[in-house]
């Protein structure tokens, strides 16, 4: 079974994003970028399934500017076998990403697609579900455990009240939650090896997908800042403040 893994180049998770001064977008010039953390978990899961003999080739796909090649090289250094970049400098919203991924799925015919459950930049949490909907496939979102069992897939999901177990017909789309696994560190020799792995580049036009944005960003702003608080000396003062000043207990 071939596995397709989708990876996004996103802001590094340690960086606090700020709006541009004119409110037209988010300041990303000279900001550290990295693979979206949830996508790292998705790549790791594909590799573990391959190592367990439950998956064949792993193809990493990214959609974005030329710099997304770095993200694909990271995925290949982790263990993906090859990469596909759908290169565009235009904004690609989740619905368009899902359509591009669908086109890649039709070319590659994987038995499973694994993606991060959300990207930490736009926080949409949409792409995996949209891809499953477009393909008419089953979806195992927010997965914390994935186990292929013949022609079905057992998925344990993180839900509001705890955990839910479902069984999916294959092929299926899985989106990775935080507790699915702990991604491996990339070793230097693997980074060197990854440079020799095949990386194909396509364009949205070659895939016949219209990526025109449906959502128009009118402005961005910083949320209202919290007024600075005070330090209290001890628990007595804290309780007094909560009772008499804040009146919340």
């Amino acid at each position, binding site marked *: 079974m071939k596995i397709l893994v989708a990876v996004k180049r996103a802001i590094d998770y340690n960086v606090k*994003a*700020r709006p541009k001064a004119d409110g037209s977008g988010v300041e990303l010039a000279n900001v550290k970028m990295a693979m979206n953390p*949830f996508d790292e978990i998705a790549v790791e899961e594909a590799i573990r399934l391959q190592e367990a003999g439950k998956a064949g080739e792993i193809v990493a796909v990214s959609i974005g500017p030329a710099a997304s090649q770095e993200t694909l090289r990271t995925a290949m250094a982790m263990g993906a076998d090859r990469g596909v970049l759908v290169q565009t400098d235009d904004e690609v919203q*989740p*619905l368009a990403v899902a359509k591009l991924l669908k086109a890649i799925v039709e070319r590659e015919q994987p038995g499973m697609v694994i993606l991060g*459950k*959300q990207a*930490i930049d*736009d*926080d*949409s*949490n*949409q*792409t*995996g*579900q949209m891809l*499953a*909907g477009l393909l008419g*496939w*089953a*979806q195992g*979102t*927010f997965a914390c455990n994935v186990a292929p069992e013949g022609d079905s897939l*057992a998925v344990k999901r*993180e*839900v*509001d*009240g*705890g*955990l*839910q*177990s*479902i*069984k*999916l*017909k294959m092929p299926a789309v899985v989106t990775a*939650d935080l*507790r699915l696994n702990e991604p491996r560190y990339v070793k230097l020799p693997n980074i060197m090896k990854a440079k020799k792995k095949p990386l194909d580049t396509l364009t949205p036009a070659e895939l016949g997908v219209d990526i025109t*944005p*449906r*959502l*128009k960003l*009118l*402005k*961005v*702003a*910083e*949320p209202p800042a*919290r007024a600075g*608080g*005070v*330090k*209290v000396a*001890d*628990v007595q003062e*804290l*309780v007094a403040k*909560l009772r008499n000043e804040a009146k*919340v*207990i």
Partner: protein
Amino acid sequence: MTALVIAEHNNQILNAATLNAAAAAARLSGGFDVLVAGHNCGAVATQAAAIAGVGKVLVADAAQYAHALAENLAPLVVSIAGGYSHLLTASTANGKNAMPRIAAMLDVAQLSDIIGVVSDDTFVRPIYAGNVLATVQSTDRIKAITVRTTGFDAIAATGGTGTIENIAVQADAGLSTFVSEELTKSSRPELAAADIIVSGGRGVGSAENFAIIEKLADLLGAAVGASRAAVDAGYVPNDYQVGQTGKCVAPTLYVAVGISGAIQHLAGMKDSKVIVAINKDEEAPIFQVADYGLVGDLFKEVPALCEALAK
């Protein structure tokens, strides 16, 4: 045109998050209906019909809707979506699971996690872990929306006079089956709806030590939450997680104990009315958002706080 709110429920009780989603729908110009898809969910339909301002309550009652599986819910919503200008659901695990599938099947974009309604086609939503608020306009004929519950005060659960209508069900898609669920049992308030939350972080150190967080929570009648670090370390179950990718909460009082205050945690709690932080590291970022900060060893301060509260 009318909006459709997809109800969240467990086939017996309407989840309160639906009232927040309905509150967002009520800000739109065309009124709203509610869809209750479930199995033996008549009681939920009755509750939905009492939501203030509701028009119709559409009921799809069949076994394949019992667990809100997206593969079955999506085609049902798509079958009736043509009559609506907006589709809304709360940003719960079920809502986040189903709405993008519905949107893609309708070939429309989704607006995730809205916290404000500017007009019928323009909405405010947090991006980048809530560090940026985006005002976004949709050009699609149907607006598919998930609603962050903390962004909208719940609409009244009573006073409505909705008319209940059964709608045609769709066959089981045959793609997915529910197997089981392990829900955390607790006598404490539900995290998403609690007035007071006491959360523990990595500083708590172990699952056993979480007992002191729970004791404080019980004294305050509070729910218990946690940072990602505490959940990853196995101190508490996953559904305790507050943050960018866990639950977003905005209680009257949030007490953060042994939590340093990573961007991702702050994203889930910084809209709380009053924030208290107890941490031994006075440089911890949590103090930048705390109204009241207490620098000290949590193993000394939390028991002392319990004692002071008990007085």
